[in-house]
């Protein structure tokens, strides 16, 4: 599905501030795989996501998605295949537009004629159905401006927006970090359901070691732009939060 090959990215190259954010990183992600990504601050996790979505171009290496080489593809062209969720719930939605309009924007990626109605009748009821599954009462507020929603509600909406057009890859960057525990739990449940149901390849960045082990099928730890731990299956089952945290602290000593 996703193949990142020897990706290298240096920021502020040839200056005193030079910073190697991705250090020849290689990663393979299969369809249906749900990877949790951990690592200390500045390890390069968000940078990896940015490289995949096209926020910048790699210095070296290549990225392939679903057999297509996207190394040089423009960001908005990649977005057709990638759903991306930010940590900040404000970032993923347009506050001055209604719930329905926000969803229509996300959904209409697939269709073509730009002067068709923004929100068609069928789409409206389809969105309503999908929102109803979240049991947050959002389906009765389709015409409300998104700016009026709580952070958790906005994040639930963003989650639906980033998956409604059925992307092949879902990237989640600490998407529950800004939420209260109850809302975070709810969003994680919805995330899990969507990833399973749509058989997406998914990657989730988290600083919560428990969350990293509880969710998904594989856990990867980054440090200095390189993968230093990659566990799945039985090895992952045996992994405990305590030992994962130990990994972090060992790195600190080095």
């Amino acid at each position, binding site marked *: 599905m996703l193949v990142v090959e020897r990706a290298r990215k240096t920021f502020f190259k040839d200056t005193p501030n030079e910073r190697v954010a991705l250090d020849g990183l290689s990663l393979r992600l299969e369809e249906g795989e749900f990877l949790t990504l951990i690592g200390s601050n500045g390890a390069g996790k968000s940078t990896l996501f940015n490289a995949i979505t096209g926020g910048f171009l790699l210095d070296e290496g290549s990225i392939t998605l679903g057999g297509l080489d996207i190394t040089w593809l423009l960001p908005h062209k990649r977005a057709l295949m990638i759903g991306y969720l930010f940590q900040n719930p404000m*970032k993923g939605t*347009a506050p001055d537009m209604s719930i329905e309009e926000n969803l229509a924007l996300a959904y209409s*990626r697939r269709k073509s004629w730009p002067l068709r109605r923004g929100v068609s009748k069928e789409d409206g009821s389809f969105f309503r159905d999908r929102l109803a599954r979240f049991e947050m009462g959002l389906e009765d507020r389709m015409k409300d401006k998104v700016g009026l929603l709580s952070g958790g509600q906005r994040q639930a909406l963003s989650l639906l927006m980033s998956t409604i057009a059925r992307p092949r890859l879902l990237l989640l960057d600490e998407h529950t970090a800004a939420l209260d525990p109850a809302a975070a739990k709810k969003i994680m449940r919805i995330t899990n359901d969507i990833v399973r149901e749509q058989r997406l390849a998914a990657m989730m960045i988290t600083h919560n070691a428990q969350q990293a082990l509880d969710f998904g099928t594989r856990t990867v730890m980054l440090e200095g732009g390189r993968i230093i731990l990659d566990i799945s299956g039985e090895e992952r089952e045996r992994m405990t939060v305590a030992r994962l945290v130990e990994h972090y602290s060992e790195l600190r000593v080095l």
Partner: protein
Amino acid sequence: MVLFAGSLHLGLIYGLMALGIYVTFRILNTPDLTTDGSFTLGLAASASLTVLGMPGLGIVCGILFGALAGGVTGFLQTKMDIHPILSGILTMSALYTVNLYVLGDRSNLSLLGSPHLFSAAVASLPGVPRDVTRFFVALLLCLVCFAFLAWFFGTHLGLCIRATGDNDDMVRASSIDVDAMRIIATALSNACVGFSGAVAAQYQGYADISSGVGMMVVGLASVIIGEVFFGRRSVTIGFVSAICGSVVYRLIIALALKSNFFPAYALKLVSALIVITALSLPALKGRLRLASARREARRHARG
């Protein structure tokens, strides 16, 4: 009565421009200074073609040239990465030359004796008072433009443009081409402004190279005055509000001039003051609230 009719006409005609300003200022969230140039461009194209006996084509060209000018500004803003305000200033400045050229190397042109939209309408409705006919022509043009914009911003493309102005981050992470949206919106805005200039030329019966100076501020003032009455709600209401704001603006100006409240040459200053007041209101309110909260806290500390 004449005063009232005149303000109503001008309010509607300049309301077309206010619609354009609303598109960039409120929907795209990027003030656009091309306006001053594209207004004159529409005016010049319309006047020159009217003198040649083609007033209808004049209006069409006013719209198209305006769109083109806006497209250039949009292109500079996005593809060339020039600051939005500077992009507008550059286009506006370059347009000065273009406008002189379009006017035939003259700084003004009179349409005296050349039939145009308003004179044709008045001539074809002999029983109806002149001002009433002119009012309906202006109203009709305004309604057409309003209906088009209201429809357009309900389409998928319209939603994409609104989202670009509302949350750039989100749009960048989506499959929408942000640059294209900005270029289209800026072109659309200046099409309205060019339209306004084209109609204004035929209404006044002359074109002057400096007619566009300060037009953007006038448009902003109209949008802001409209919002005093309508608040900031949906885009469609926003368009209605911009037109109404333009009419009210003209009425205020006409009344002030009539009562010798200020001389005609103070117009631009007054427009700028209206905009400054409206834009600084939130900051002033915040500061006042902070001051009163402090006073309250101090009282509690003492008591």
